[in-house]
């Protein structure tokens, strides 16, 4: 078995037993990036000097002993997380030359605290706005399962590099499905924890009441290890939760006999491709075999998730992105003759079309005369969506749904029609509006392309979600399959 086919646990064991060093492991991945990434465009910055320096430091610590499990294991960072000394562009021309003066909390936790090795920064939709990675200033990322298809978005670089074995694991973020939809499109396991569980400090803000960081990995066990290291209270994030982090890893072996799974009928109505439905239904059958008790539930307001989101998220984005003004950091127009022109031209030149659309929608729904009809109404509907989940979790432990309506689509299929693109996230957005944890994991293939299904949990129930997913993966082998061209 090649190094890039090992699980994180096996990698840690190999490092501890001195079968290979962190430097050798890191060099193996750097070589694969050099060999394959021209085809995928998953990395926007490869950082070999930093990686090898961190790997040597990890090897020294491994030799001394008493280190954590993740010491010396490489990871790719989504280019939305600030990294001192390495550009953080967030997929935008606006930040093409931006080098942050501080590290995001999760960067500190994964590298400084846990001793992981950063291979580089990975591509994404501009400011995480997109479902196909086609809005990136650095060009689209390709899906390793079919190079003519999108990898999903916004975490397209994160999933492409992990699915192709160019990194063992990658960080990602999810505002409306940006971890789960790309994970489903590339046969990966991706989890977005409860809002507030992982610090947002140093994660460039898109929609602050929805944004949450997480991880994409090749198994639930790998995802749990990384999420454990990322989670926890952070005084630097005012919405971080002061609550101890559950043990996400050692509880993975529990039986799910008697687990109550709810199937929201609104998610199983029309709209799902037949190939997706077949795979998701097979996953439900498998979970029944494992002892889960399945029942139909209703989330009556869930169909309103997309319109609600496309008021709330752009409103918050228009406010968050106001800081990009050409004065303190980021792109500055050379054509401006006065201050107003400096703002307008810097922003007009620095932002791509999708970001401009969302800023304008957000500005419009917040503007005088429209605030009540759009923004306030959307916030009320958001409450109804939240109440639906609260009610559902009084009777079930976990909610199961498809992650996406179809498999990965072709480049250009949705890029001219924003509304069609937005409907890609129809199954994933509700979890962000409610703030609950949710994950996607592989459950089969349709015409050669991966299909994922989604598990949504109650607040802070990450440990239970991960255990259900792990039990499913113990009984199935979909998640172990890799795209053939990248073996």
């Amino acid at each position, binding site marked *: 078995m090649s190094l890039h086919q090992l699980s994180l646990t096996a990698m840690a064991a190999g490092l501890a037993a001195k079968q290979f060093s962190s430097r050798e492991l890191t060099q193996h991945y750097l070589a694969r990036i050099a060999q394959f990434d021209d085809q995928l465009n998953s990395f926007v910055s490869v950082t070999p000097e930093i990686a090898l320096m961190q790997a040597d430091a990890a090897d020294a610590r491994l030799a001394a002993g008493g280190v954590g499990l993740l010491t010396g294991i490489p990871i790719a960072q989504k280019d939305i997380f600030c990294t001192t000394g390495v550009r953080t562009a967030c997929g935008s021309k606006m930040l093409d030359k931006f080098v942050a003066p501080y590290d995001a909390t999760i960067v500190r936790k994964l590298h400084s605290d846990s001793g992981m090795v950063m291979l580089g920064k990975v591509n994404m939709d501009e400011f995480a706005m997109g479902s196909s990675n086609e809005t990136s200033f650095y060009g689209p990322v390709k899906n390793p399962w079919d190079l003519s298809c999108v990898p999903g978005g916004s975490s397209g670089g994160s999933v492409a590099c992990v699915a192709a074995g160019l990194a063992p694991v990658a960080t990602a973020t999810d505002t409306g499905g940006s971890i789960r939809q790309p994970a489903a499109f590339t046969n990966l396991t991706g989890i977005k924890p409860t809002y507030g569980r992982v610090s947002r400090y140093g994660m460039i803000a898109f929609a602050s009441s929805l944004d949450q960081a997480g991880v994409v990995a090749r198994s639930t066990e790998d995802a749990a290890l990384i999420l454990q290291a990322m989670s926890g209270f952070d*005084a630097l994030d005012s919405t971080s939760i002061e609550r101890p982090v559950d043990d996400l890893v050692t509880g993975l072996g529990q039986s799910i006999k008697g687990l109550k799974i709810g199937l929201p009928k609104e998610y199983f109505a029309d709209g799902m491709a037949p190939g997706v439905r077949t795979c998701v239904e097979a996953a439900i059958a498998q979970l029944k075999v494992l002892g889960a008790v399945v029942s139909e539930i209703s989330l009556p307001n869930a169909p309103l998730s997309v319109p609600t989101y496309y008021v709330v998220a752009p409103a918050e984005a228009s406010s968050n992105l106001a800081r990009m003004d050409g004065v303190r*950091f980021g792109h500055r127009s050379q054509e401006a003759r006065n201050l107003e022109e400096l703002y307008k031209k810097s922003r007009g030149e620095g932002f791509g079309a999708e970001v401009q659309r969302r800023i304008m929608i957000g500005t419009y729904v917040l503007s005088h005369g429209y605030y009540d009809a759009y923004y306030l109404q959307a916030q009320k509907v958001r409450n109804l969506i939240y109440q639906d989940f609260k009610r559902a979790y009084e009777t079930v432990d976990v909610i199961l749904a498809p992650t996406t309506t179809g498999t990965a689509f072709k480049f250009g299929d949705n890029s001219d029609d924003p509304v069609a693109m937005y409907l890609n996230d129809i199954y994933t957005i509700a979890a962000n509006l409610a703030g609950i944890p949710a994950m996607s994991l592989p459950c089969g293939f349709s015409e050669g392309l991966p299909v994922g299904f989604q598990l949504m949990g109650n607040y802070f129930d990450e440990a239970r979600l991960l255990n259900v997913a792990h039990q499913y993966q113990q009984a199935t082998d979909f998640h172990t399959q890799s795209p053939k061209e990248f073996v």
Partner: protein
Amino acid sequence: MSLTPEQVQQVAHLARLELKPEKTTLYAQQLSNILAMVDQLTAVDTRGVMPMAHPLELTQRLRPDLVSEPNRREAYQAHAPAVEAGLFLVPKVIE
């Protein structure tokens, strides 16, 4: 709700975005489509429902009013497009 190219220019002005004139027609059409999708919210009965700004019931954490941050002006200005004598430069504001 549909937007005219003129309304799009007005919203872009509020957002301090310069749009190329040839783009406003396409933007007007796309933004109108988005608003048409969003318009289904108006039919929802939300009488008596509290607006939800945030997924968790949090209160703002307070900290003691003590100086905790060192002065990092140089680091924070290192990535600025134009600075002089520790100040951010902008085009002349007062004639």
